[in-house]
């Protein structure tokens, strides 16, 4: 199964090797994922990354640092990646991050707010509301950002580290969206949240 927004008969464009068939560096990556996420929870994104295992491991480490270090909340980061997935029309990514938002304590209404790029309804503290809009602006046109934009989020309470963390959330979301979109990597078997949205995109494009 590829992206829901494409033909349902169109599989991913590269081989996604199942867990029980993995060997060598690919198996090492899958083992690392299962140690963190649980047995069988090797996402299709990382099955695609496993075509280049060292890069897959580096990106998994990057994701772990982003999600588990720093001071911004998991709900903020997953909410921002949900919004980016919507911007990038990556239905697998919308499904993954919307599910992660719920796991981080968000309500269905807050997931809808992320999809509507509405930080005021995300249930975030003022600092993270400001950073959410700042990050979306940077994603839209990074070279249009100004010193005043940075000063404004600092006045809302953000530190330099918070700003870098928010921008790296954008980078990571976009990087993963690109791999999934370009290679038609579809949602994992354990995810079907927002399937209808992907199917609606396909109908709009037809």
């Amino acid at each position, binding site marked *: 199964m590829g992206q829901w927004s494409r033909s349902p008969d169109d599989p991913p464009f590269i081989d996604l090797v199942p867990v029980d068939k993995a060997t060598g560096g690919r198996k090492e990556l899958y083992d690392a994922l299962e140690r963190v996420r649980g047995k069988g929870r090797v996402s299709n994104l990382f099955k695609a990354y496993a075509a280049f295992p060292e890069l897959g491991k580096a990106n998994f480490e990057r994701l772990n640092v982003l999600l588990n270090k720093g001071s911004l909340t998991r709900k903020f980061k997953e909410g921002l990646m949900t919004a980016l997935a*919507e*911007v990038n*029309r990556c239905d697998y990514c919308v499904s993954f991050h919307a599910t992660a938002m719920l796991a981080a304590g968000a309500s269905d209404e807050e997931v809808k707010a992320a*999809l*509507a*790029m*509405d*930080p*005021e309804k995300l249930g975030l503290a003022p600092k993270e509301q400001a950073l959410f*809009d700042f990050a*979306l*602006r940077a*994603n*839209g*046109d990074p070279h*249009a950002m100004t010193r005043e934009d940075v000063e404004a989020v600092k006045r809302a309470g953000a530190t330099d580290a918070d700003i870098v963390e928010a921008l790296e959330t954008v980078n990571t979301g976009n990087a993963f969206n690109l791999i999934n979109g370009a290679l038609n990597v579809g949602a994992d078997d354990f995810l079907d949240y927002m399937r209808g*949205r992907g199917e609606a*995109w396909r109908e*709009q494009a037809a």
Partner: protein
Amino acid sequence: MALLRDGTGTPEFATAISSSGVTLVEVYGPDCQICKRIEPMIAAFEGAMDGVVTAYKLDASRDMVFAAQHEVRGLPTLLLFKDGALADRKSGFMTTTMLKDWVRPFLG
């Protein structure tokens, strides 16, 4: 993500910008990357407005007369029409929050 209606050359668009109410127009070009990134913001903004604002996109390369008449100098250019007249304009990327802050004073 809902897509913006493409009003380029359509009678519906001509009617919308000359009628009562508030209409937001994104003047875009097919090769404009920032235009692609602002489109979901405008679509989300329109959805949040619950029918109070109607949004369209218009391809400047296919309607150069409209672009010239409205002095479009760069892409994207956002034109805000109220009650049949151009009320305000912006250029460059804006988030949904920025769009709300911009348009709110023109409502009501």
